[in-house]
């Protein structure tokens, strides 16, 4: 039986002293190994939910537990982010002066790995996402799809159980977008839990479960 890896109860997140209510009682359950897509229009709270699941933000109220860790009471969210989750953003957010291989090594700097170990691991990850020939390329020398694949390799750097992706194909053409989604499917088949936030229906349909979100609430499974 698959175990529950992400669980939220009545999550509320407000901004500007309560004037803006980004999340309005979100309850969500994700089992280990699931590929979940959260769909919804811009401003419905998808990214806010993802940031809370990834320990980047704290909820105003409610409960959130990820891989057994209660994020509302966890003291060291840095350690949680290093080990438990990997992020892929809409913009690749790669460091422009570093090569693909160096960018992938960035999260590994918090682990006790030698320079050689980091380098080898980064090369393996880039090979896995199909960029074996692009290890020493800086982001400006890579296509949009290739940059996003480097970002995926970076998200996998510390071998997290969960991948959180925020509109990962939002800035890509459809062919590159398809490549990225196939990469996610492959990672999911290997056992990784994926939570994907998107407003693109075609992309969401690649996931096993699709939730629809509106006005800070999950409306239901599609």
């Amino acid at each position, binding site marked *: 039986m698959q175990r529950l890896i992400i669980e939220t109860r009545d999550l509320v997140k407000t901004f500007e002293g309560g004037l803006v209510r980004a999340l309005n009682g979100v309850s969500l359950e994700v089992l280990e190994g699931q590929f979940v897509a959260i769909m919804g229009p811009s401003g419905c709270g998808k990214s806010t939910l993802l*940031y809370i699941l990834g320990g980047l933000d704290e909820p105003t109220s409610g409960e959130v537990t990820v891989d057994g860790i209660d994020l509302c009471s966890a003291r060291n969210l840095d*350690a949680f*982010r290093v080990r438990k989750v990997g*992020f892929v953003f809409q913009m690749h957010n790669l460091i422009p002066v570093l090569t693909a291989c160096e960018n992938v090594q*960035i999260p590994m700097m*918090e682990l006790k790995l030698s*320079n050689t170990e*980091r*380098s080898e691991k980064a090369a393996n990850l880039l090979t896995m996402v199909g960029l074996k020939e692009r290890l020493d390329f800086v982001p400006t020398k890579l296509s949009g799809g290739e940059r996003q694949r480097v970002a995926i390799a970076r998200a996998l750097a510390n071998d997290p159980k969960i991948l959180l992706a925020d509109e990962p194909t939002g800035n890509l053409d459809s062919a590159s977008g398809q490549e990225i989604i196939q990469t996610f499917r492959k990672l999911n088949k290997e056992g990784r839990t994926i939570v994907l936030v998107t407003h693109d229906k075609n992309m969401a349909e690649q996931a096993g479960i699709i939730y629809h979100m509106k006005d800070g609430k999950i409306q239901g499974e599609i």
Partner: protein
Amino acid sequence: MRFLMLIFKNILRRKTRSAFTVLGISIGIATIIALGALMNGMTASMEDILKSGEADFSIAQSGIADLSFSRIEENITGEIQNLNGVKKVAGVLIGIYPIGSNPYVMIWGVKSEDLQMLGVNVLNGSAFASEHELILGEAISKDLGKTVGNKLVLREEEFNITGIYQTGAIYQDRGLAMSLDKLQELEKKEGYVTVIYVELEEGTSLETVCGQIEEGFPDLVTIKSASELGKVDQGLEIMDAVSLAVSILAIFIGGIGVTNTMMMSIFERTREIGVLRAVGWKKRRVMTMILRESILLCVFSVLIGSLLGVIGVRLLMLEPTIRGILEPLFTIETFARAFAVAFAVGLVGGLYPAYRASKLSPSVALRYE
């Protein structure tokens, strides 16, 4: 990739901005190096003057701002000679005259029998024997193109050059020596000397004799080491104060420059810092990265600034007037001081930006446009 490599690459992102920041701090560092070298040179020269040859210490008038103002009655030399443990005493009158292109040539009025005690080594010819004879320092002899047998005019009086000497000290070797009586006449200081040099018998306590002199002659002051030069030359103390003030200014101005550069860098990299925090970087690592970038900028500055300082001083020495009175002395301490200042600039200037960067909320930073 090593952490240091990331820091190095971050600095090189905005090459022009980094270069101007480095240049700004380098100028401060160059000033510290140049002032330090010149002051070291002046201190060494003063020490040479006050601890000439075999003398163990020297005596000057107390309460003076500059050694050239010192005025001691010549007959005091006899009284000091009679003190227990004193082997030899030499009274010297020092005058400053413009000769050739150098407006500050030091002329020593000294009895010829005291020359050896003062470390004057006559290389060529012989010491002066009459009032219208003098000996030239090796360096001024070359500068003026004059040697033994030539003549030199001072205050409209003609002097025969009887010898060329060397002491190894810049002031003396760029100066000349003549009889004490003649210089007293030229300077209208009959019966007075500027400095008294004292050589002690072996085993005599330097402190005891100096104490006796300062007690017995309240108008006089003894100088035993370089640290006591301030007693007779406030110029050195002023230079030291100026050097310290420049260092503080360099820290302040350089610090503001570094802070500005690093703050701009952080604003430009806000999203990136958000990503670093998102992938698990601790606040401390972000802070360390920014601080090290700031310190690395200053390390580059100290390298370039030191080079500029050395080149600047060498260029200054091309000017004959300056070359005649100053011999720069570059010491490890001067460079260490410059390095310490640069490190302080990097640390002080980078502290606030590093703190700000570490305090960035990852979610806010990631939403930053």
